[in-house]
């Protein structure tokens, strides 16, 4: 019975593998099981080898090259063995919650802005270290992220993490200079002129291919900011301070004027019909193809070297320039001062391992200032960059250092960084950063329990779209607000915002 024996062998292997699977089932790890050097006063116990530190960060795991000079230098300088554990952006939050649920959090955690609910949950469940006693050990970090960085990380009054240094998102209107020249038009300076130009771009065949296949204006849904900003408000459901009082943009009397302005453009048929579904990549693509003549976007989506190259391949004369703020426009975008770029947090269990904790703090400081900072911004000195007088100039080999941003744990001083990294765009970045913006404070407001902000935002998004496109009349705007309050309990959120911002001292 050769046959039977064979079957037995097969069965055996299958059964053992079954056992293995069950053995791998998640075990409740004991946080106290981590090596626990006795706390010996101020001086932490020295152990033999380098201290290994693992950090969970969002990013593509393949982004780090095999020859990772940043890690080598950090390890050597700080006596650590630093490991970045990268997970794709979409999966990162999932992974964090699994790690949290199994009490297996790594030594440093990054939480992206869109996953903040994970941060709140972890903080409230007591998994994160309250950084308050360690603030004086985080001097360089504080220089980098500022006092606000730590304020933004507050949950229920305690500092469980800090936000990376703020980024600049300098959106604005950009316009095809060559199209203006071809049609003999001037750069628009008012909203009315902008509409005229947009009409001409739609109807007068600015690309000269004999077809009516162009549009005046394109962008993502965020284009609404440009139009509402012309009337002093901004995107729906943003909190800002007007005459010392907290205002939600939805309740700003200027909102109706803004809606009518945007409606005027949409009704004229000069706006990309896919405006509300475009993603930034679509806009980049449409700009390169000469699909429209005016774009509401930030420089990085339009005029990076590779985008310009692509655009010039299709039309060598193509030239996108920034449109200066229109007359009377109060702002062209908002800037959320409470906006969190990403939260950096340390798990509570490190409290029991002062040596490791100290190294983690040291690491955070090191990449925030001086040599360590330059290493993670630009690469190795005299290899990827060199000093010319006071300025840092990147060398030919800068391409090798394109992954170093993964080690910018505390962020970077955005303006200096961009000026050094993108010399050809430096002027445009400066110019677009100088456009007027409205300070908003949404980032500080945590939606109260029981208030379903997702449903409310969906309602706001859909209803506003109806107003913009003229499917709903502006006269019905107050009815919309009433049902927002009644059906979605919106007042609770407004009250929470008021309370929070008063607590932080932004509103009196």
């Amino acid at each position, binding site marked *: 019975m050769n046959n*039977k024996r064979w*079957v037995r062998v097969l*069965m055996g292997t*299958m*059964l053992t593998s*079954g056992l293995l*699977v*069950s053995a791998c*089932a998640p075990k*409740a790890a004991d946080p106290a099981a981590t090596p626990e050097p006795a706390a010996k006063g101020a001086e932490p116990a020295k152990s033999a080898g380098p201290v290994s530190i693992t950090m969970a960060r969002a990013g593509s795991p393949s982004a780090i090259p095999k020859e990772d000079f940043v890690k080598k230098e950090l390890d050597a300088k700080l006596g650590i063995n630093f490991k970045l554990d990268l997970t794709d952006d979409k999966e990162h*939050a999932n992974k964090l*919650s699994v790690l*949290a*649920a199994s*009490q297996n959090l790594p030594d440093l955690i990054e939480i992206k802005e*869109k996953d903040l*609910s*994970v941060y*709140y*949950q*972890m903080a409230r*469940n*007591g*998994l994160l270290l309250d950084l308050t006693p360690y603030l004086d050990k985080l001097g360089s970090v504080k220089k980098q992220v500022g006092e606000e960085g730590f304020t933004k990380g507050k949950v229920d009054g305690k500092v469980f993490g800090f936000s990376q240094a703020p980024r600049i998102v300098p959106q604005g209107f950009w316009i095809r200079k060559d199209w203006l020249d071809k049609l003999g038009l001037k750069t628009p300076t008012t909203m009315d002129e902008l509409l005229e130009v947009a009409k001409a771009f739609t109807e007068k065949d600015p690309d000269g291919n004999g077809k009516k*296949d162009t*549009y005046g204006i394109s962008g993502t*849904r965020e284009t609404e900011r440009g139009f509402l900003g012309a009337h002093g408000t901004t995107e729906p459901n943003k909190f800002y301070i007007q005459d010392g009082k907290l205002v939600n943009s939805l309740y700003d009397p200027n909102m109706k004027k803004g809606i009518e302005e945007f409606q005027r453009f949409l009704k004229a048929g000069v706006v*990309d*019909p*896919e405006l*509300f*579904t475009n993603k930034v990549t679509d806009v980049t693509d449409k700009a390169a193809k000469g*699909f429209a003549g005016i774009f509401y976007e930030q420089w990085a989506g339009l005029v990076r070297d590779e985008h310009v190259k692509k655009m010039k391949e299709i039309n060598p004369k193509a030239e996108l320039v920034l449109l200066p703020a229109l007359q009377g426009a109060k702002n062209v975008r908002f800037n959320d001062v409470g906006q969190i770029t990403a939260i950096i947090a340390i798990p509570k269990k490190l409290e029991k391992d002062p040596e490791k904790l100290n190294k983690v703090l040291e690491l955070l400081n090191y990449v925030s200032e001086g040599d360590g900072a330059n290493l993670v911004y630009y690469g190795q000195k005299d290899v990827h960059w060199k000093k010319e007088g006071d300025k840092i100039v990147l060398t030919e080999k800068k391409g090798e250092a394109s992954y170093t941003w993964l080690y910018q744990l505390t962020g970077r001083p955005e303006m200096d960084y961009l000026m050094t990294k993108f010399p050809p765009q430096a002027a445009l970045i400066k110019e677009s950063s100088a456009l007027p913006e409205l300070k908003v404070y949404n980032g500080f407001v945590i939606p109260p329990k029981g208030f*379903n902000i*997702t*449903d409310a935002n*969906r*309602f706001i*998004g*859909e209803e506003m*779209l109806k107003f913009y496109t003229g499917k709903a009349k502006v006269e019905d705007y107050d009815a919309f607000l009433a049902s927002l309050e009644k*059906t*979605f309990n919106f007042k609770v959120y407004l009250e929470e915002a008021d309370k929070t911002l008063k607590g932080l001292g932004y509103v009196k």
Partner: protein
Amino acid sequence: MERAIDIRSTAHPQKKAARSLWKAVLQHQMLYWMLLPGLAYFIVYRYVPMFGAVLAFKEFDFSLGILASPWADPWHKHFTFFFESPYFSQLLTNTLLISLYKLVFGTIPPIIVAVLFNECRTLWFRNVVQTLSFMPHFLSWVIVYGISIAFLSETTGLFNRWFTESGLDPVPFLTSSEWFRSVLVGTDMWKDMGWGAIIYLAAMSSIDPTLYEAARVDGAGRLRMIWSITLPGIRNIIVLMLILKLGHLLDAGFEQIYVMYNVHVMPVSDIIDTWVFRVGLEQMNFGLASAVGLFKSLIGLVLVVGSNALAKRWGDEGLW
């Protein structure tokens, strides 16, 4: 086996039966060993995780774990949160409608395709077409969405280019509530038609060929044979597939809709699963997510058991 029981069933019928069952197990022990890994799989991956459903009645706390987390107060908190969402009725309607459309258009076309393949006498042609027809099944929804944009986009899509060049108005296939469900069902059909046909084809190949011969002798044409032999021959499979699909009536295709929907079409395309993803999982509200999951599973269970009973009453073989 039955015979063995019959012979010995003179005294102590129960004891005998038990003994003979044990004997039967011993005799076929190889089969039972082979059953074990399957059982283990179901226990580890299907039954044990069911205890997680208890989360539907808890306030999940990372540091405490599932069992030690405090009970929700009141116990139906997460369920009420779901039922009281202003969008509840819309979500349910969308889910059921999209699901029903997919049920109808996901069943009939594959049968037609299977019949066509079955009737195709040029073997190489049939093989080539069949292989091509089930290829889309292996594409991810992101890719299918990319393809549908290339064809259906309002400004750059191939169809709308044709429309505008021939003087017609462009049709916002992907951004209008009138068209979007058709696009959902259409892409779903395109993706899984060939794949769905495989099982019907397999069922057809087990129909006794002498039936066809007899019919041919009696002068039946091709259409008559399809109608009177092929279709009745696969009736059981059709019913079986329908019952299985009914269990998933409240899954209208999360992946597809999550990739394809946008602010214009939310009112006709937001389904229970996409809502749970946004409100439950993205907001770390695991209690809510499990409550809705439990709700869906219970309805699915009722539907499967009910339709199975109905199928049996109508004289078809059910699932069990």
